């Protein structure tokens, strides 16, 4: 990684090749001709840190972007909700890892001390006294106001921040100005800290450029997950739940410009849970065919609602809550398609093929239960099967014997699908019951009435 033609960051392989920080491009290429050299992109770096800050809004609304790619979060009000500092720290680490970046986590009672620990080696200091102890390990160059005087401090033999604290204050102030003393006081809690917390935008819209051209929609999931983490952080900070969002995949610009592929996800039950949204999106992305390679992803929250307070019932319901079931249904709809996930919506009609109506889960209609009490088969064939006749009896594997009186169903004149049928329950030789009907023929028809199989008693 180069900045102003100097190496600023390098990986282990580069280190073993003999490359050190501060080297020029020519030197790098001499030592390792195959090295991958990238220019540092400060705007994208800032965007990334901002994204992490949004993701950390899960834990507290007080998040601030500090200097040198540090995100400070005031979690003092959230400790009880997340079960103490250690679970909170673990969750924060998981969130940051899920975001796809590596980070050093540090905990301290003051923001400045946490900043110093995060910039040095990380660690936990829960009281001001342990901050005092931990400052002995923090190297002096980690403190920005001390950097211009690094040589002078070196001559004095000051290596850690604690060494500087033990110097006479008046002399320090005279030689180094007030900034150094202020920073030290803020770290130890002797001076108040004022932060301008991250302002949350009223609407959420985030865009992420992909590191490479992506041909398969599934590969976008990694980038989409980052955006969803940001969005759920924003949602939880504003006490909102998402009901509809759109993921847009921007394609390469150029001569053959393609409009972005939009994946719209509407949720029956507004949610702010990251894992559910990611699973939902994964199933949706699995079904998307990309018209052209994608170069960027944009996530827009289209419809947000007020979030419900979490249920605080003492005994959890067996089998999960209705919200859990709604989430399951959404997941199934996302993978199988809406027309394949149906629920019973019976219609009060005597014609069985009309009465047995199944509608996609999302549609809500007034359900009219049909007249009940008559034997009806559980299975209904989509189209009736005509039965062959043997010895004036319908035949289906074995001769069928009628075991019920005829039930005439005659209706449908109002919508043009008139049926006049006599339904019977028939029993075959191997004791299986079938629901068969005989077409009613008028006196003028000279053909024999035909028999059809229409249902099976499950």
């Amino acid at each position, binding site marked *: 990684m180069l900045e102003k033609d100097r190496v600023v960051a390098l990986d282990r392989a580069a280190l073993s090749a003999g490359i050190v920080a501060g080297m020029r491009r020519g030197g790098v290429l001499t030592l390792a001709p195959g090295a991958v050299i990238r220019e540092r992109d400060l705007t994208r770096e800032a965007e990334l840190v901002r994204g992490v800050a949004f993701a950390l809004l899960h834990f507290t609304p007080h998040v601030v972007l500090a200097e040198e790619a540090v995100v400070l979060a005031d979690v003092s009000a959230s400790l009880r909700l997340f079960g103490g500092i250690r679970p909170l720290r673990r969750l924060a680490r998981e969130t940051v890892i899920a975001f796809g970046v590596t980070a050093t986590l540090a905990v301290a009672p003051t923001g400045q001390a946490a900043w110093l620990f995060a910039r040095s080696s990380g660690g936990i200091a829960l009281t001001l006294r342990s901050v005092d102890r931990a400052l002995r390990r923090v190297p002096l160059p980690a403190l920005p106001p001390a950097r211009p005087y690094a040589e002078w401090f070196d001559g004095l033999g000051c290596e850690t921040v604690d060494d500087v604290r033990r110097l006479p204050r008046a002399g320090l102030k005279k030689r180094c100005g007030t900034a150094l003393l202020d920073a030290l006081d803020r770290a130890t809690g002797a001076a108040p800290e004022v932060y301008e917390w991250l302002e949350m935008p009223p609407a959420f819209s985030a865009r992420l450029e992909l590191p490479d051209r992506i041909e398969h929609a599934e590969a976008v999931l990694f980038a989409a997950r980052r955006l969803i983490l940001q969005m759920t952080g924003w949602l939880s900070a504003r006490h909102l739940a998402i009901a509809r969002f759109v993921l847009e995949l921007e394609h390469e610009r150029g001569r053959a410009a393609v409009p972005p592929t939009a994946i719209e996800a509407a949720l029956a039950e507004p949610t702010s849970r990251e894992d559910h949204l990611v699973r939902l999106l994964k199933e949706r992305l699995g079904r998307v065919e990309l018209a052209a390679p994608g170069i960027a992803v944009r996530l827009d929250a289209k419809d947000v609602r007020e979030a419900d307070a979490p249920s605080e019932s003492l005994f959890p319901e*067996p*089998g*999960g*809550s209705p919200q*859990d*079931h709604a*989430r*399951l*249904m959404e*997941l*199934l709809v996302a*993978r*199988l*398609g809406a027309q*394949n*996930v*149906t*629920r*019973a919506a*019976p219609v009060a009609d005597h014609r*069985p093929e009309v*009465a*047995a109506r*199944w509608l996609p*889960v999302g549609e809500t209609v007034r359900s009219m*239960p*049909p007249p*009940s*009490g*008559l*034997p*009806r*088969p*559980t*299975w*209904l*064939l*989509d189209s009736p099967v005509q039965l062959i006749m043997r010895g004036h009896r319908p035949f289906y594997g074995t001769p069928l014997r*009628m*075991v*019920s*009186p005829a039930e005439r169903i005659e209706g449908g004149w109002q919508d043009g699908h008139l049926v006049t049928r006599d339904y019977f*329950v028939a*029993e075959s030789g*191997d*004791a*299986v*019951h*079938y*629901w068969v009907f005989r077409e009613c023929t008028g006196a003028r028809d000279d053909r024999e009435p035909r028999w059809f199989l229409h*249902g*099976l*008693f*499950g």
Partner: protein
Amino acid sequence: MSALPRHPEDIDPELWRASHLAAGFDRVVLCGHAALAAELPGGGWLAGALTELLTPQPGCGELHLLQPALATVGSRPLLLLQPPHRLQPAGLAWLGVPAGQACALRAPRTADALWAAEQILRAGTCGALLFWQSEVRQEALRRLHLAAQASDILLFLFRPLAAAQATSPAPLRLALRAARGGIEVTFVKRRGPQRDEPVFVPLMPSPALLSRYATLDRRTSAAPRPRGVSPALVDATP
């Protein structure tokens, strides 16, 4: 030596003697048929286990057999995955299966169906899952069974009768066959002794309203009273 446990169930609830039916299950849904319950391990359908029902064709009374169990878990949604035909809500209502919360799912591919079954089992929000699938590979079955064990859902897998030849990790496999007035249940595999003769389970109400024979009243008539004259009376007469 005297400390040896008398029953293998005391050592571990998963252990049972091969000559007895396994017991000691904590999640059993009553099957509602006394003749069948006496032969089922645990005395009913096991929630959180894969139960295979092998049917020669759809429509031999398989849903009717499950009706008491489905009515027991009826407060939670009922999911039907890959049903072979269209379900008739009126037919379910006639059987007594609550159809209000029933959902039918169709999957374009087998992999989708198995994925859906696993998601449903993992969510654990529904009461029963009925799954029709003719072609299932054995590792998929094992996966289904593992997913079922983590939940408390009644899981029934309907397969054709030919699948009885193949091995399966399901602890209970029953072959069903329609019989006059009910259904015959053959035990292909169960946790207990081998039983070859099928169990007949009468299913009421039967769709057959007419009978070839007059209904037979099986109640025995009252014991005939002796109609003789009391000897005391005989003696009293001069």
